[in-house]
Protein backbone atom coordinates (compact mmCIF):
# COMPACT_ATOMS: atom_id res chain seq x y z
CA UNK A 1 0.00 0.00 0.00
CA UNK A 2 1.12 3.55 -0.57
CA UNK A 3 1.56 5.99 2.29
CA UNK A 4 -1.63 7.76 1.22
CA UNK A 5 -3.62 4.51 1.27
CA UNK A 6 -2.36 3.56 4.71
CA UNK A 7 -3.20 7.00 6.02
CA UNK A 8 -6.72 6.72 4.61
CA UNK A 9 -7.07 3.34 6.25
CA UNK A 10 -6.06 4.80 9.63
CA UNK A 11 -8.46 7.71 9.22
CA UNK A 12 -11.28 5.29 8.51
CA UNK A 13 -10.35 3.16 11.54
CA UNK A 14 -10.39 6.20 13.80
CA UNK A 15 -13.70 7.43 12.41
CA UNK A 16 -15.36 4.45 14.10
CA UNK A 17 -14.49 5.67 17.59
CA UNK A 18 -17.27 7.51 19.27
CA UNK A 19 -15.38 9.12 22.10
CA UNK A 20 -11.87 10.03 23.14
CA UNK A 21 -11.58 7.04 25.47
CA UNK A 22 -12.02 4.51 22.66
CA UNK A 23 -9.48 6.41 20.64
CA UNK A 24 -6.91 6.48 23.42
CA UNK A 25 -7.56 2.86 24.36
CA UNK A 26 -6.76 2.01 20.75
CA UNK A 27 -3.59 4.13 20.87
CA UNK A 28 -2.57 2.35 24.08
CA UNK A 29 -3.13 -1.02 22.40
CA UNK A 30 -1.08 0.11 19.40
CA UNK A 31 1.60 1.24 21.81
CA UNK A 32 1.93 -2.28 23.10
CA UNK A 33 2.44 -3.60 19.58
CA UNK A 34 5.06 -1.21 18.28
CA UNK A 35 7.79 -2.91 16.15
CA UNK A 36 10.29 -3.08 18.97
CA UNK A 37 13.74 -1.61 18.51
CA UNK A 38 16.62 -4.02 19.14
CA UNK A 39 17.87 -3.48 22.71
CA UNK A 40 21.37 -2.72 21.44
CA UNK A 41 20.02 0.36 19.63
CA UNK A 42 18.41 1.79 22.77
CA UNK A 43 21.26 4.22 23.21
CA UNK A 44 21.47 7.98 23.48
CA UNK A 45 22.30 8.07 19.77
CA UNK A 46 18.83 6.79 18.99
CA UNK A 47 16.99 9.01 21.47
CA UNK A 48 14.72 11.66 20.02
CA UNK A 49 15.10 15.00 21.71
CA UNK A 50 12.16 17.16 22.66
CA UNK A 51 10.17 14.38 24.30
CA UNK A 52 9.13 14.31 27.95
CA UNK A 53 9.21 10.55 27.69
CA UNK A 54 12.16 8.81 26.13
CA UNK A 55 11.70 7.67 22.54
CA UNK A 56 14.23 5.59 20.65
CA UNK A 57 13.97 5.29 16.89
CA UNK A 58 16.01 3.11 14.56
CA UNK A 59 15.92 2.78 10.78
CA UNK A 60 17.26 0.24 8.34
CA UNK A 61 17.47 0.31 4.57
CA UNK A 62 16.61 -2.97 2.86
CA UNK A 63 16.17 -3.22 -0.91
CA UNK A 64 15.53 0.46 -1.30
CA UNK A 65 12.91 0.59 1.45
CA UNK A 66 13.20 2.10 4.93
CA UNK A 67 12.14 0.03 7.95
CA UNK A 68 11.62 1.64 11.34
CA UNK A 69 11.64 0.19 14.84
CA UNK A 70 11.12 2.13 18.06
CA UNK A 71 10.38 2.12 21.75
CA UNK A 72 9.33 4.58 24.40
CA UNK A 73 8.76 4.49 28.14
CA UNK A 74 5.33 6.12 27.66
CA UNK A 75 2.68 3.96 26.08
CA UNK A 76 0.58 6.68 24.40
CA UNK A 77 3.72 8.08 22.82
CA UNK A 78 4.51 4.56 21.68
CA UNK A 79 1.04 4.29 20.14
CA UNK A 80 1.61 7.45 18.15
CA UNK A 81 5.06 6.22 17.08
CA UNK A 82 3.44 3.00 15.96
CA UNK A 83 0.99 4.94 13.80
CA UNK A 84 3.90 6.71 12.15
CA UNK A 85 5.77 3.45 11.67
CA UNK A 86 2.70 1.90 10.08
CA UNK A 87 2.58 4.80 7.65
CA UNK A 88 6.27 5.13 6.82
CA UNK A 89 7.89 1.74 7.37
CA UNK A 90 8.54 -0.28 4.22
CA UNK A 91 8.27 2.78 1.98
CA UNK A 92 10.91 4.23 -0.30
CA UNK A 93 12.96 7.20 0.92
CA UNK A 94 11.42 9.38 -1.81
CA UNK A 95 7.86 8.52 -0.75
CA UNK A 96 8.67 9.24 2.91
CA UNK A 97 10.20 12.59 2.04
CA UNK A 98 7.21 13.60 -0.07
CA UNK A 99 4.54 12.52 2.42
CA UNK A 100 2.60 14.87 4.65
CA UNK A 101 1.18 14.04 8.09
CA UNK A 102 -2.23 15.66 7.71
CA UNK A 103 -3.89 12.39 8.75
CA UNK A 104 -2.86 13.10 12.37
CA UNK A 105 -5.16 16.09 12.33
CA UNK A 106 -7.90 14.13 10.62
CA UNK A 107 -7.93 11.48 13.34
CA UNK A 108 -8.25 14.16 16.00
CA UNK A 109 -4.77 13.99 17.48
CA UNK A 110 -3.80 17.43 16.28
CA UNK A 111 -2.80 18.58 19.75
CA UNK A 112 0.05 16.08 19.60
CA UNK A 113 1.43 17.76 16.48
CA UNK A 114 1.99 21.19 17.95
CA UNK A 115 5.69 22.06 17.86
CA UNK A 116 5.53 23.05 21.52
CA UNK A 117 4.02 19.76 22.62
CA UNK A 118 6.55 18.01 24.76
CA UNK A 119 5.85 14.52 23.42
CA UNK A 120 7.94 15.45 20.42
CA UNK A 121 5.77 13.98 17.67
CA UNK A 122 7.13 16.69 15.41
CA UNK A 123 10.69 15.63 16.26
CA UNK A 124 9.78 12.02 15.49
CA UNK A 125 8.47 12.87 12.03
CA UNK A 126 11.53 15.02 11.42
CA UNK A 127 13.84 12.19 12.48
CA UNK A 128 12.06 9.70 10.21
CA UNK A 129 12.40 12.07 7.27
CA UNK A 130 16.05 12.63 8.15
CA UNK A 131 16.69 8.88 7.93
CA UNK A 132 14.90 8.85 4.55
CA UNK A 133 17.02 11.77 3.39
CA UNK A 134 20.23 9.99 4.33
CA UNK A 135 19.20 6.78 2.56
CA UNK A 136 18.15 8.75 -0.50
CA UNK A 137 21.55 10.45 -0.64
CA UNK A 138 23.28 7.09 -0.30
CA UNK A 139 21.18 5.69 -3.14
CA UNK A 140 21.85 8.65 -5.39
CA UNK A 141 25.59 8.25 -4.90
Amino acid at each position, binding site marked *: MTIKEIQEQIVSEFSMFEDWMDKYNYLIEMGKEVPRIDERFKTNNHLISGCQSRVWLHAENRDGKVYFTADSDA*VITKGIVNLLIRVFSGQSPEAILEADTDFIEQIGLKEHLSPTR*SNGLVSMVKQMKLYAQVYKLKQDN
Partner: protein
Amino acid sequence: MNGFTASELNELRNQFPALHQRVFGKPLVYLDNAATTQKPQLVIDRITKYYSYENCNIHRGVHYLSQEATAAFEDVRTKVAGFIHAAKSEEIIFTKGTTESINLLAGSLDGFLIGIGDSVLVTGMEHHSNLVPWQQLCKRNQAKLLVAELDDRGEVFLEQFGKLLEQKPKLVAITHISNALGTINPVKEMIAMAHANDIPVLIDGAQSVAHMHVDVQDLDCDFFVFSGHKMYGPMGVGVLYGKEKWLDKMPPWQFGGEMVDQVSLQETTFNQLPFKFEAGTPNVAGVLGLGAAIEFLNQTSLEKIGQHEHQLLDLAMEKLRSVQGIRFIGNAKNRAGVISFVVDGTHPTDIGTLVDKMGVAVRTGHHCAQPVMTRFDVPGTVRASFALYNTAEEVEVFAAAVQKAAGMLH
Protein backbone atom coordinates in the same frame (compact mmCIF):
# COMPACT_ATOMS: atom_id res chain seq x y z
CA MET B 1 -8.81 24.53 60.32
CA ASN B 2 -11.58 26.53 58.76
CA GLY B 3 -10.69 27.63 55.25
CA PHE B 4 -13.51 29.18 53.23
CA THR B 5 -17.26 28.71 53.45
CA ALA B 6 -18.97 27.47 50.30
CA SER B 7 -20.31 30.92 49.48
CA GLU B 8 -16.95 32.59 50.09
CA LEU B 9 -15.31 30.08 47.77
CA ASN B 10 -17.96 30.60 45.14
CA GLU B 11 -17.50 34.34 45.32
CA LEU B 12 -13.74 33.94 44.97
CA ARG B 13 -14.10 31.69 41.95
CA ASN B 14 -16.34 34.20 40.28
CA GLN B 15 -13.48 36.66 40.26
CA PHE B 16 -11.43 34.38 37.99
CA PRO B 17 -12.74 34.39 34.42
CA ALA B 18 -10.32 31.68 33.25
CA LEU B 19 -11.83 29.11 35.61
CA HIS B 20 -15.20 29.25 33.92
CA GLN B 21 -14.47 27.44 30.69
CA ARG B 22 -14.68 23.95 29.30
CA VAL B 23 -11.85 21.96 27.78
CA PHE B 24 -12.64 18.94 25.61
CA GLY B 25 -16.25 19.54 26.62
CA LYS B 26 -15.53 19.17 30.36
CA PRO B 27 -15.39 21.91 32.99
CA LEU B 28 -11.76 22.97 33.42
CA VAL B 29 -10.15 21.71 36.63
CA TYR B 30 -7.00 23.79 36.89
CA LEU B 31 -4.41 22.14 39.13
CA ASP B 32 -1.21 23.56 37.71
CA ASN B 33 -1.01 26.45 40.11
CA ALA B 34 2.60 25.89 41.11
CA ALA B 35 3.47 26.72 37.50
CA THR B 36 1.23 29.77 37.39
CA THR B 37 -2.03 30.80 39.01
CA GLN B 38 -5.02 32.23 37.18
CA LYS B 39 -5.64 35.97 37.50
CA PRO B 40 -8.55 37.64 39.26
CA GLN B 41 -10.53 40.27 37.36
CA LEU B 42 -9.12 43.14 39.41
CA VAL B 43 -5.57 42.29 38.30
CA ILE B 44 -6.66 42.11 34.66
CA ASP B 45 -8.57 45.38 35.04
CA ARG B 46 -5.60 47.12 36.64
CA ILE B 47 -3.36 46.28 33.69
CA THR B 48 -6.04 47.32 31.18
CA LYS B 49 -6.60 50.60 33.01
CA TYR B 50 -2.90 51.40 32.92
CA TYR B 51 -2.56 50.80 29.20
CA SER B 52 -5.89 52.53 28.47
CA TYR B 53 -5.45 55.73 30.45
CA GLU B 54 -2.19 55.93 32.38
CA ASN B 55 0.49 54.66 30.01
CA CYS B 56 3.73 56.63 30.03
CA ASN B 57 7.31 56.24 31.15
CA ILE B 58 7.93 56.72 34.82
CA HIS B 59 10.35 58.49 37.14
CA ARG B 60 11.78 61.27 34.97
CA GLY B 61 8.80 62.81 33.25
CA VAL B 62 7.71 66.23 34.50
CA HIS B 63 4.27 65.88 32.96
CA TYR B 64 1.06 64.90 34.72
CA LEU B 65 0.72 61.33 33.44
CA SER B 66 4.31 60.46 34.28
CA GLN B 67 3.98 61.75 37.79
CA GLU B 68 0.73 59.88 38.35
CA ALA B 69 2.20 56.64 37.01
CA THR B 70 5.39 57.08 39.02
CA ALA B 71 3.35 57.57 42.18
CA ALA B 72 1.27 54.45 41.45
CA PHE B 73 4.42 52.43 40.69
CA GLU B 74 6.17 53.52 43.88
CA ASP B 75 3.00 52.90 45.86
CA VAL B 76 3.23 49.23 44.86
CA ARG B 77 6.80 49.12 46.16
CA THR B 78 5.45 50.19 49.53
CA LYS B 79 2.67 47.59 49.27
CA VAL B 80 5.18 44.83 48.50
CA ALA B 81 7.32 45.91 51.45
CA GLY B 82 4.23 45.69 53.66
CA PHE B 83 3.21 42.35 52.18
CA ILE B 84 6.48 40.63 53.17
CA HIS B 85 7.16 42.91 56.14
CA ALA B 86 10.37 44.46 54.81
CA ALA B 87 11.81 47.20 57.00
CA LYS B 88 11.95 49.69 54.12
CA SER B 89 10.49 49.99 50.66
CA GLU B 90 14.02 50.72 49.32
CA GLU B 91 14.75 47.06 50.02
CA ILE B 92 12.28 46.02 47.29
CA ILE B 93 13.77 45.68 43.81
CA PHE B 94 11.42 44.96 40.90
CA THR B 95 12.60 42.31 38.45
CA LYS B 96 10.89 40.23 35.82
CA GLY B 97 10.54 37.23 38.11
CA THR B 98 12.18 34.89 40.58
CA THR B 99 14.68 33.67 38.01
CA GLU B 100 15.85 37.18 37.19
CA SER B 101 15.99 38.09 40.88
CA ILE B 102 18.36 35.19 41.50
CA ASN B 103 20.44 35.97 38.41
CA LEU B 104 20.68 39.59 39.55
CA LEU B 105 21.94 38.39 42.89
CA ALA B 106 24.38 35.91 41.39
CA GLY B 107 25.64 38.56 38.98
CA SER B 108 26.12 41.19 41.64
CA LEU B 109 27.67 38.87 44.23
CA ASP B 110 30.12 37.39 41.71
CA GLY B 111 33.47 38.83 42.74
CA PHE B 112 31.84 40.96 45.44
CA LEU B 113 30.97 38.23 47.93
CA ILE B 114 31.89 35.04 46.12
CA GLY B 115 35.32 34.65 44.53
CA ILE B 116 38.00 32.17 43.57
CA GLY B 117 37.94 29.02 45.67
CA ASP B 118 34.86 29.99 47.72
CA SER B 119 31.70 27.93 48.05
CA VAL B 120 27.91 28.31 47.90
CA LEU B 121 25.47 26.00 49.70
CA VAL B 122 22.14 24.91 48.19
CA THR B 123 19.80 21.99 48.89
CA GLY B 124 19.02 18.99 46.70
CA MET B 125 15.46 20.21 46.12
CA GLU B 126 16.16 23.53 44.41
CA HIS B 127 14.33 24.58 41.27
CA HIS B 128 16.83 24.95 38.42
CA SER B 129 16.45 28.72 38.83
CA ASN B 130 18.00 28.56 42.29
CA LEU B 131 20.60 26.01 41.27
CA VAL B 132 22.00 26.80 37.84
CA PRO B 133 22.90 30.48 38.54
CA TRP B 134 24.96 29.34 41.57
CA GLN B 135 26.41 26.34 39.79
CA GLN B 136 27.58 28.55 36.91
CA LEU B 137 28.90 31.24 39.26
CA CYS B 138 30.90 28.50 41.02
CA LYS B 139 32.26 27.30 37.67
CA ARG B 140 33.38 30.83 36.77
CA ASN B 141 35.20 31.15 40.08
CA GLN B 142 36.53 27.64 40.54
CA ALA B 143 34.29 27.71 43.59
CA LYS B 144 32.53 24.75 45.12
CA LEU B 145 28.78 24.12 45.08
CA LEU B 146 27.83 22.38 48.33
CA VAL B 147 24.54 20.48 48.36
CA ALA B 148 22.49 19.57 51.43
CA GLU B 149 20.94 16.19 50.70
CA LEU B 150 17.35 14.99 51.06
CA ASP B 151 16.00 12.06 53.03
CA ASP B 152 13.42 9.65 51.59
CA ARG B 153 10.54 11.85 52.68
CA GLY B 154 11.99 14.78 50.77
CA GLU B 155 13.24 16.77 53.76
CA VAL B 156 16.70 18.29 54.10
CA PHE B 157 19.06 16.45 56.46
CA LEU B 158 19.54 19.30 58.89
CA GLU B 159 22.52 17.66 60.53
CA GLN B 160 24.35 17.43 57.22
CA PHE B 161 23.27 20.99 56.41
CA GLY B 162 24.92 22.06 59.69
CA LYS B 163 28.10 20.18 58.82
CA LEU B 164 28.25 21.87 55.41
CA LEU B 165 27.95 25.27 57.10
CA GLU B 166 31.22 24.50 58.86
CA GLN B 167 32.89 24.67 55.45
CA LYS B 168 32.02 28.38 55.56
CA PRO B 169 30.17 28.85 52.27
CA LYS B 170 29.79 32.52 51.32
CA LEU B 171 26.06 32.17 50.74
CA VAL B 172 23.24 29.75 51.50
CA ALA B 173 20.49 29.62 48.83
CA ILE B 174 17.43 27.54 49.74
CA THR B 175 13.86 27.23 48.65
CA HIS B 176 11.06 28.00 51.08
CA ILE B 177 8.75 25.39 49.53
CA SER B 178 9.79 22.75 47.01
CA ASN B 179 7.83 23.06 43.77
CA ALA B 180 8.38 19.37 43.02
CA LEU B 181 7.83 17.80 46.47
CA GLY B 182 5.73 20.31 48.36
CA THR B 183 8.16 20.23 51.30
CA ILE B 184 8.08 23.36 53.46
CA ASN B 185 11.65 23.83 54.64
CA PRO B 186 12.25 24.96 58.22
CA VAL B 187 13.84 28.11 56.83
CA LYS B 188 13.79 30.11 60.03
CA GLU B 189 15.84 27.44 61.77
CA MET B 190 18.15 27.06 58.76
CA ILE B 191 18.69 30.83 58.57
CA ALA B 192 19.57 30.92 62.27
CA MET B 193 22.03 28.06 61.74
CA ALA B 194 23.67 29.92 58.83
CA HIS B 195 23.76 33.20 60.70
CA ALA B 196 25.47 31.49 63.64
CA ASN B 197 28.27 30.95 61.12
CA ASP B 198 28.00 34.52 59.73
CA ILE B 199 26.67 33.30 56.40
CA PRO B 200 23.96 35.26 54.55
CA VAL B 201 20.88 33.40 53.28
CA LEU B 202 18.73 33.72 50.17
CA ILE B 203 15.23 32.27 50.36
CA ASP B 204 13.46 31.34 47.11
CA GLY B 205 9.87 32.22 47.95
CA ALA B 206 8.35 31.54 44.52
CA GLN B 207 6.15 28.78 45.94
CA SER B 208 5.45 30.28 49.35
CA VAL B 209 4.24 33.90 49.12
CA ALA B 210 0.78 33.07 47.81
CA HIS B 211 0.20 30.26 50.28
CA MET B 212 1.47 31.43 53.64
CA HIS B 213 2.25 34.55 55.58
CA VAL B 214 5.85 35.67 54.98
CA ASP B 215 7.69 38.05 57.32
CA VAL B 216 11.23 38.61 56.07
CA GLN B 217 12.26 40.39 59.27
CA ASP B 218 11.00 37.57 61.44
CA LEU B 219 12.71 34.99 59.20
CA ASP B 220 15.76 37.27 59.23
CA CYS B 221 16.71 36.17 55.70
CA ASP B 222 19.18 38.40 53.88
CA PHE B 223 17.47 38.00 50.52
CA PHE B 224 14.01 36.81 49.51
CA VAL B 225 12.79 36.40 45.93
CA PHE B 226 9.42 35.68 44.33
CA SER B 227 7.34 36.03 41.15
CA GLY B 228 4.11 37.90 40.53
CA HIS B 229 2.50 35.28 38.32
CA LYS B 230 2.47 32.53 40.94
CA MET B 231 0.56 34.81 43.34
CA TYR B 232 -2.38 35.78 41.10
CA GLY B 233 -0.42 38.64 39.53
CA PRO B 234 0.86 39.08 35.99
CA MET B 235 3.76 37.36 34.31
CA GLY B 236 7.02 39.22 33.78
CA VAL B 237 7.20 40.86 37.17
CA GLY B 238 8.95 39.70 40.32
CA VAL B 239 10.74 40.91 43.39
CA LEU B 240 14.16 40.78 44.95
CA TYR B 241 14.10 41.74 48.60
CA GLY B 242 17.46 42.34 50.21
CA LYS B 243 18.50 43.77 53.52
CA GLU B 244 19.63 47.35 52.98
CA LYS B 245 23.04 46.60 54.45
CA TRP B 246 23.66 44.19 51.57
CA LEU B 247 21.96 45.98 48.69
CA ASP B 248 23.63 49.26 49.54
CA LYS B 249 27.11 47.81 49.18
CA MET B 250 26.47 45.46 46.28
CA PRO B 251 27.50 46.58 42.78
CA PRO B 252 24.82 47.02 40.08
CA TRP B 253 24.13 44.11 37.77
CA GLN B 254 22.70 45.66 34.64
CA PHE B 255 23.49 49.13 33.40
CA GLY B 256 21.65 51.97 31.71
CA GLY B 257 18.46 53.94 32.17
CA GLU B 258 17.16 54.89 35.56
CA MET B 259 19.98 53.19 37.49
CA VAL B 260 22.56 55.97 36.90
CA ASP B 261 23.26 59.20 38.74
CA GLN B 262 25.86 61.14 36.71
CA VAL B 263 27.23 59.97 33.39
CA SER B 264 30.19 61.30 31.42
CA LEU B 265 31.81 59.56 28.49
CA GLN B 266 34.43 58.16 30.84
CA GLU B 267 32.68 57.67 34.18
CA THR B 268 29.30 56.87 35.72
CA THR B 269 28.06 57.18 39.26
CA PHE B 270 25.07 55.12 40.20
CA ASN B 271 21.66 55.96 41.57
CA GLN B 272 20.68 55.06 45.10
CA LEU B 273 18.53 52.15 46.24
CA PRO B 274 16.31 50.73 44.90
CA PHE B 275 16.91 52.32 41.46
CA LYS B 276 20.54 51.19 41.29
CA PHE B 277 19.26 47.69 40.48
CA GLU B 278 16.47 48.67 38.10
CA ALA B 279 18.09 49.32 34.73
CA GLY B 280 15.90 50.19 31.77
CA THR B 281 12.18 50.92 31.62
CA PRO B 282 10.47 48.67 34.13
CA ASN B 283 7.34 46.59 33.55
CA VAL B 284 5.04 49.29 34.90
CA ALA B 285 1.79 47.51 33.99
CA GLY B 286 3.15 44.33 35.58
CA VAL B 287 4.09 46.11 38.78
CA LEU B 288 0.64 47.73 39.01
CA GLY B 289 -0.94 44.32 38.39
CA LEU B 290 1.21 42.89 41.16
CA GLY B 291 -0.07 45.63 43.44
CA ALA B 292 -3.64 44.57 42.64
CA ALA B 293 -2.75 40.94 43.35
CA ILE B 294 -1.41 41.92 46.77
CA GLU B 295 -4.63 43.82 47.50
CA PHE B 296 -6.56 40.71 46.49
CA LEU B 297 -4.47 38.48 48.79
CA ASN B 298 -4.74 40.93 51.68
CA GLN B 299 -8.53 40.97 51.32
CA THR B 300 -8.72 37.19 51.08
CA SER B 301 -6.52 36.33 54.11
CA LEU B 302 -3.44 34.19 53.60
CA GLU B 303 -4.26 32.24 56.72
CA LYS B 304 -7.57 31.05 55.29
CA ILE B 305 -5.93 30.35 51.93
CA GLY B 306 -3.35 28.12 53.63
CA GLN B 307 -6.05 26.26 55.57
CA HIS B 308 -8.18 25.78 52.48
CA GLU B 309 -5.30 24.45 50.39
CA HIS B 310 -4.31 22.10 53.17
CA GLN B 311 -7.81 20.67 53.30
CA LEU B 312 -7.64 20.05 49.54
CA LEU B 313 -4.23 18.41 49.93
CA ASP B 314 -5.49 16.03 52.63
CA LEU B 315 -8.57 15.15 50.62
CA ALA B 316 -6.53 14.54 47.45
CA MET B 317 -4.04 12.29 49.28
CA GLU B 318 -6.88 10.29 50.76
CA LYS B 319 -8.67 9.88 47.42
CA LEU B 320 -5.53 9.06 45.45
CA ARG B 321 -4.39 6.37 47.86
CA SER B 322 -6.85 3.92 46.31
CA VAL B 323 -5.20 4.21 42.88
CA GLN B 324 -3.39 0.95 42.24
CA GLY B 325 0.39 1.37 42.09
CA ILE B 326 0.43 5.03 43.17
CA ARG B 327 3.61 6.25 44.82
CA PHE B 328 3.83 9.73 46.32
CA ILE B 329 7.15 11.47 45.77
CA GLY B 330 7.68 13.72 48.75
CA ASN B 331 6.10 12.90 52.09
CA ALA B 332 7.41 15.70 54.26
CA LYS B 333 5.71 16.27 57.59
CA ASN B 334 5.30 19.94 56.88
CA ARG B 335 4.07 20.48 53.34
CA ALA B 336 2.19 22.81 51.05
CA GLY B 337 -0.60 22.10 48.56
CA VAL B 338 1.56 20.26 46.06
CA ILE B 339 1.23 16.54 45.31
CA SER B 340 3.79 14.74 43.20
CA PHE B 341 3.26 11.11 42.30
CA VAL B 342 3.97 8.30 39.90
CA VAL B 343 1.76 5.31 39.14
CA ASP B 344 3.92 2.24 38.83
CA GLY B 345 3.80 0.67 35.39
CA THR B 346 2.79 3.96 33.73
CA HIS B 347 4.65 7.04 32.55
CA PRO B 348 3.71 10.45 34.00
CA THR B 349 3.03 11.88 30.52
CA ASP B 350 0.51 9.11 29.83
CA ILE B 351 -1.41 9.98 32.99
CA GLY B 352 -1.15 13.70 32.20
CA THR B 353 -2.38 13.21 28.62
CA LEU B 354 -5.40 11.18 29.71
CA VAL B 355 -6.52 13.37 32.61
CA ASP B 356 -6.19 16.38 30.29
CA LYS B 357 -8.86 14.75 28.12
CA MET B 358 -11.07 14.72 31.22
CA GLY B 359 -10.58 18.46 31.70
CA VAL B 360 -7.95 18.21 34.41
CA ALA B 361 -4.81 20.34 34.01
CA VAL B 362 -1.84 18.90 35.87
CA ARG B 363 1.85 19.12 35.15
CA THR B 364 4.03 16.18 34.22
CA GLY B 365 7.77 15.94 33.90
CA HIS B 366 10.70 17.00 36.02
CA HIS B 367 9.24 20.37 37.12
CA CYS B 368 12.55 22.15 36.47
CA ALA B 369 14.07 20.14 39.30
CA GLN B 370 15.90 17.32 37.54
CA PRO B 371 18.20 16.55 40.49
CA VAL B 372 15.08 15.85 42.59
CA MET B 373 13.87 13.32 40.00
CA THR B 374 17.32 11.70 40.00
CA ARG B 375 17.31 11.57 43.81
CA PHE B 376 14.00 9.68 43.82
CA ASP B 377 14.88 7.65 40.75
CA VAL B 378 11.83 8.58 38.68
CA PRO B 379 11.74 9.94 35.10
CA GLY B 380 9.34 12.62 36.26
CA THR B 381 6.13 12.86 38.23
CA VAL B 382 2.54 13.93 37.83
CA ARG B 383 2.05 17.06 39.90
CA ALA B 384 -1.17 18.61 41.10
CA SER B 385 -0.89 21.93 42.90
CA PHE B 386 -3.72 23.77 44.56
CA ALA B 387 -4.75 27.40 44.76
CA LEU B 388 -7.31 29.29 46.80
CA TYR B 389 -10.03 28.80 44.13
CA ASN B 390 -9.87 25.01 43.88
CA THR B 391 -12.75 23.05 45.36
CA ALA B 392 -13.29 19.69 47.02
CA GLU B 393 -15.43 18.71 44.00
CA GLU B 394 -12.50 19.44 41.71
CA VAL B 395 -10.28 17.25 43.84
CA GLU B 396 -12.85 14.46 43.46
CA VAL B 397 -12.90 14.92 39.68
CA PHE B 398 -9.10 14.89 39.61
CA ALA B 399 -8.79 11.73 41.72
CA ALA B 400 -11.43 9.96 39.64
CA ALA B 401 -9.62 11.04 36.45
CA VAL B 402 -6.32 9.61 37.71
CA GLN B 403 -8.13 6.43 38.71
CA LYS B 404 -9.64 6.12 35.24
CA ALA B 405 -6.35 6.92 33.47
CA ALA B 406 -4.47 4.35 35.54
CA GLY B 407 -7.17 1.81 34.70
CA MET B 408 -6.76 2.48 30.97
CA LEU B 409 -3.00 2.15 31.17
CA HIS B 410 -2.71 -0.93 33.34
